[in-house]
């Protein structure tokens, strides 16, 4: 190969090109910003990954798996309907974004793949556990349900299970206790229900129904009844 290499000095050509084309070095701050931007994206992605994981865990744990047969014909259909696809997609998407940007940081390549994944996973698990324990994931889920259009369709949770009086499932806030047998309940869509107890089983037995408390019930719609009435046989705290 040696004889085929032309060893002419190209330094003058390059310096001339630099002068003629008025080429200037990119300012330092551009590189600093680029590096910080990559770290910022990694950091934000980490937060979103943790949030997604904590919401997935929250939705899974708070789900009433024992009453799926009242809601769906089979467990497979029930799982398909209640899988939080939005959070799963965001979780995976932001993992890719975090990995991509982590590799783009100045020193990202120095950490091995296993080490980066293990450290990242550890941070995400700690953060998402913190979000779960402090009730942040539940609050965020509630806020999204309230304020984000379409969220309820994309992410179905136990509110949807317990909002099906035709199938015998109803939940909401106790408005007024009329007597030992009857109380008024406002469901989470703000409809008022007259609730009548019938051989009622309270789970756990020590649970006391109070005005202002949230509950979930299994029973049936009273038909025909003059006002919207639900005959309840099982009451559980929300």
């Amino acid at each position: 190969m040696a004889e085929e290499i032309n060893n002419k000095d190209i330094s003058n050509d390059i310096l001339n090109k630099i002068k003629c084309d008025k080429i200037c070095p990119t300012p330092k701050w551009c590189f600093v910003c680029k590096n910080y931007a990559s770290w910022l994206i990694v950091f934000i992605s980490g937060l979103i990954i943790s949030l997604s994981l904590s919401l997935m865990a929250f939705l899974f744990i708070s789900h009433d798996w024992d009453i799926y047969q009242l809601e769906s014909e089979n467990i497979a259909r029930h799982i398909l309907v209640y899988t939080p696809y939005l959070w799963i997609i965001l979780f995976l998407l932001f993992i890719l974004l975090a990995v991509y940007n982590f590799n783009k940081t100045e020193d990202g390549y120095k950490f091995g793949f296993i080490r980066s994944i293990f450290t990242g996973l550890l941070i995400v698990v700690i953060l998402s556990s913190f979000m779960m324990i402090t009730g942040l994931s539940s609050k965020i889920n509630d806020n999204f349900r309230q304020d984000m259009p379409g969220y309820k369709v994309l992410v179905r949770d136990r509110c949807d299970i317990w909002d099906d009086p035709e199938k015998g499932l109803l939940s909401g806030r106790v408005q007024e206790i009329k007597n030992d047998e009857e109380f008024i309940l406002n469901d989470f869509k703000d409809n008022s229900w007259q609730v009548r107890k019938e051989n009622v089983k309270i789970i756990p037995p020590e649970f006391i129904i109070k005005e202002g408390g949230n509950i979930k019930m299994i029973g049936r719609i009273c038909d025909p009844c003059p006002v919207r009435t639900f005959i309840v046989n099982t009451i559980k705290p929300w």
Partner: protein
Amino acid sequence: MEENILEKSDADLVSLSLENSEFYGFLIQRYQERLKRYILRIAGGVYNDVDDILQDVFIKVYKNLNGYNPKLKFSSWIYRITHNETISFLRKINRKPTTYNFEIDAVKVKTIEEDLTLDQKLDNAKVKENLLRIINNLDKKYQDVVMLRYTEDKDYQEISDILRKPQGTVATLLRQAKSQLKEEILKNQHLFS
């Protein structure tokens, strides 16, 4: 003055080039030959385009001088840019480097002997030729690291910085490459005695 400049480190020349582009000429002179050879090795002999690639490399390096991190060796940084520019060039002309172009004179036989802890010497011409054949037939995944280690004489840290791969990965690739190399040499003992 020129003598004085030639004694300056790469990092000093980078600082001086940022103040006055004339100093950049000294960096070009310092690296042009080895980078040209490196391009020819990894691009499998693009003789007609090597000067264009090299020019693009030096212009890119100049534009990015402020992005040079003095924690790295300047040579690692400029090799990284050269590597990436060459691969981009090959992609642009829709060509993949199938095998790298190792040359007999460039292979650092001494480093191979040390790395492989071989009993025999690999320093006669015929033996070197056979060694080159084996190196050229190594798996493609080892060629980047083998090239940098045995022709550019880079250490693990430098290879890691050039290829932007963790040092552990570089060590693993080199270990596997060395083991393949040693196995081939032992299998073909008659060619190396």
